[in-house]
């Protein structure tokens, strides 16, 4: 018997992306550049986070025509973003047969209270999280891959570091917790008890956990990998930089050889201008994307 859309099949694709870099692209040409540089997947969207942040307005799912062009241009998996809670955008992307859907805080949320019921889909979902409770709730809703939220479009890695460190610390605490403390932990983290049980059983977080939000340099990518990320999403960091081809390739090398400072020194040299960054303190509270 053939079974499609099982959790193992959904999380399995994410497992295959481990140790790789997923790059935001807005055109078929950018997708080809990403593939040639060694990206393991591309994320199709209308505007990169830095532009969404600068231009404001409502950010929505990309035009299906654009998504199709990107899918036709590359042989690696194509992901695309939907607004939080916008299950019809997700239905459309599933009909287009994208390989993964990112229910993303980078776009303007469509539902202030509820995320998408991701169990209802055959296509797998990735969701952002700032802490273990949030990550476990998304898994409870059916997400098969998690990424840190960071603060998208800033070129500033500090928030991704914060989120990854917190999540790792909380995972260690759950694994070490005695039986009679686990329910209390679930309550305090607002995490589904069953997902915490799974973490303890497996001795690790049950799905792939990538780093995202503010990664702009090869060193940023290697930092996130050394902090325990399974792989890297780069949004604005590549196509908002001076030499996208070279930077993309360098971030790919840095993600694989994250523990080898000699290689990191080689690939970090002479990349031209990185995207100009934003200090988190300069962002007005209502423009913070991670709290969505």
């Amino acid at each position, binding site marked *: 018997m053939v079974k499609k859309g099982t959790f193992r099949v959904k999380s399995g*694709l994410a*497992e*295959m*992306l481990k*140790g790789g870099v997923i790059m935001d692209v807005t055109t078929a040409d950018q997708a080809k550049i990403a593939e040639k540089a060694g990206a393991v997947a591309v994320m199709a969207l209308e505007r990169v986070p830095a532009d969404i942040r600068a231009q404001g307005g409502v950010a929505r799912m990309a035009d299906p025509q654009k998504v199709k062009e990107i899918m036709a241009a590359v042989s690696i*998996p194509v992901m695309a973003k939907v607004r939080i809670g916008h299950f019809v955008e997700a239905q459309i992307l599933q009909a287009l047969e994208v390989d993964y859907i990112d229910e993303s805080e980078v776009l303007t949320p469509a539902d202030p209270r509820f995320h998408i019921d991701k169990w209802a889909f055959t296509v797998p979902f990735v969701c952002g999280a700032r802490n273990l409770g949030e990550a476990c709730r998304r898994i409870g809703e059916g997400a098969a891959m998690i990424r840190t939220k960071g603060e998208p479009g800033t070129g500033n890695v500090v928030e991704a570091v914060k989120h990854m460190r917190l999540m790792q610390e909380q995972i260690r605490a759950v694994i070490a917790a005695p039986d009679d403390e686990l329910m209390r932990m679930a309550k305090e983290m607002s995490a589904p008890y069953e997902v915490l049980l799974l973490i303890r059983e497996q001795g690790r977080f049950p799905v792939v956990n990538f780093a995202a939000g503010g990664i702009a340099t090869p060193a940023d990518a290697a930092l996130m990998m050394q902090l325990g990320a399974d792989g890297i999403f780069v949004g604005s960091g590549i196509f908002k930089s001076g030499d996208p081809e070279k930077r993309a390739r360098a971030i790919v*090398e840095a993600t*694989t050889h994250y523990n080898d400072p000699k290689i990191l020194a080689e690939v970090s040299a002479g990349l031209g201008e990185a995207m100009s960054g934003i200090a988190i303190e300069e962002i007005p509270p209502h423009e913070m994307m991670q709290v969505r």
Partner: protein
Amino acid sequence: MTTEIGVLGLQGAVREHLAALSRLGIAARAVKRSAELDGLSGLILPGGESTAISLLAGEGFLARLREMADAGVPLFGTCAGMILLAREIAGQSITYIQAIDITVARNATGRQVDSFETTLSVDGIGDDVPAVFIRAPYITRMGPEVQPLARHEGTVVMAQQGNVLVTSFHPELTDDLRIHRYFLGMVEKYRQEVQQ
């Protein structure tokens, strides 16, 4: 010489293969640079993205793997690993290690919504082997030296030519260790040959 098996560790499902080997009590390590290939009695090429893995490996590394294949070292490629080991890849002129005389079609099972799991009948292993296919490649041509080991709906999805074993699917995503054990049998045979 102790048995040590490598898992090509540039990108992809490295952890799962290492875990399967460790459950079988075999020493294993991830290999990221060609110098780390020395002394291995076998190598697994995991699933991942074949284009990314080949770029990260580079020509020198691939040449070393070709030498290992020629020297009879057992190699086992799953999914992307099978693409790297194939002699020909349908629709593209680029090839990689060319250690097994097959042609593969990339992403032959379609996009992710068509990825699936099933059970297969595998020659010499069992008729209930769980298999996970993720945007999987299929074998569309086999040379006379190649032995088909499993089919899915008529298409060959597992094959062997001497010291090279390939699967379209991911045994490492299941708890079933029989295919890894089969590969260890190949490794054991190679070690005995080397000792003689």
